[in-house]
């Protein structure tokens, strides 16, 4: 460091360059201060212009560097992040809406398909039932017919048998009467007698 003793204005105050010894006691420093402009090193006004000058220069340079270069870059990164988050959120929102739309569409399609299936099933059931009904009715009619025919046959058989019985009874009665009276009754008399008894 420079150890020169600069001549300084104003008032011809001479700033003492510090002694090379690093530690000097308080007494020494107050003595030194009495020689200088004030007790504190900060009040050695001879060094003020240089500090003020360089402070303004350095501040101006730093201001230009920060305001033109780094602050826009940092701010840009923050804004880019905000924009990206905003954009991603918007994309996500669109994707969600699309998914919801598709899901409701699918649900609607499913409901439609279910309704169609139910209708088809119901139709098939109805058709099967109708066919079964007609078949049943036909079978039933056929059965009725056969039943009726059978009943008629039985009735005819019974009538025929009954008439045979009557004939047999008449012949028997004729024979019995002839045997008892020796005279054969006419067939008309016998029939009348049978009819009377049968009544």
């Amino acid at each position: 460091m420079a150890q020169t003793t600069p001549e300084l204005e104003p008032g011809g105050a001479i700033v003492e360059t510090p002694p090379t010894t690093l530690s000097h006691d308080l007494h020494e420093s107050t003595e030194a201060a009495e020689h200088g402009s004030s007790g504190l090193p900060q009040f050695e006004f001879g060094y003020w212009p240089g500090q003020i000058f360089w402070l303004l220069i350095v501040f101006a340079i730093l201001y230009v560097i920060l305001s033109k270069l780094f602050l826009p870059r940092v701010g840009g990164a923050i804004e880019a992040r905000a924009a990206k988050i905003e954009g991603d959120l918007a994309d996500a929102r669109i994707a969600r809406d699309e998914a919801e739309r598709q899901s409701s569409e699918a649900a609607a399609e499913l409901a439609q398909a279910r309704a169609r299936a139910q209708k088809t099933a119901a139709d098939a059931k109805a058709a099967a039932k109708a066919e079964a009904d007609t078949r049943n009715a036909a079978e039933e009619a056929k059965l009725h017919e056969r039943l009726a025919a059978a009943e008629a046959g039985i009735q005819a058989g019974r009538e025929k048998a009954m008439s045979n019985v009557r004939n047999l009874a008449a012949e028997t009665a004729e024979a019995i009467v002839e045997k008892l009276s020796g005279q054969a009754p006419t067939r008309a008399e016998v029939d009348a007698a049978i009819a009377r008894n049968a009544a």
Partner: protein
Amino acid sequence: MADPMHQFEIQQVLELPAVAGFDLSITNSALWMIIAAASVTLFFAAASAKAAVVPGRLQSVGEMLYELIHNLTDSIIGHEGKKYFPFVFTLFAFILAMNLLGMVPYFFTSTSQLAVTATLGLLVIAVVIAVGFARNGLGFFKLFVPSGVPFFVLPLVVVIEVISFLVRPVTLALRLFGNMVGGHVVLKVFGGFVVSLGALGALGIVGALVTLTGTVAITALEFMVAFLQAFVFAVLACVYLNDVVNLHSH
């Protein structure tokens, strides 16, 4: 014990020829201003190098500082605060760098020089006055005439307002200067106690340990003060700028 004021002594680093009778040599004070500004520049060069969407650690710190001051100008000055953000941010970053560098042993604290803090204070007020006249013309003087004050106390109020305005650079300068000098002197004195007590034998060592604990605690406090004073300077710069930017709504 080492002289606690010795750390504030100005020394020439690079002698330059005087200009108009002023000694503009680079002193240790000016050197550490340059180092502080270079540190800020290097830090933001590194922090904004990638400008990644997902920030790294360095970029996060850079963005934190950015948003801290951005919120300040935004909340205090309002929408127009954007224009003054670079100025306030430069003030904040520059003062913070000088304060923090001063925390390193053997480094010089430029903000412990009244020449530096007074210049910064006057710079803020100069900008405030310039912005005030640029935006309001002669309406700038309405700053000293609050509305809704009865006319018979108005002269008194105007005098008070003018004085409070003129005191602003002084308080700006003295607050930062006092905090930095005070903290460093206290650290130096306590550090000196540790050494001198430690030389006194067993009891002295106990005392030295207590003092050492205190020194460590004060060091932590001083880091906080280093940040806080830079922040306070930025806040007050915003408040004073707001006075002239939003003069109509005063």
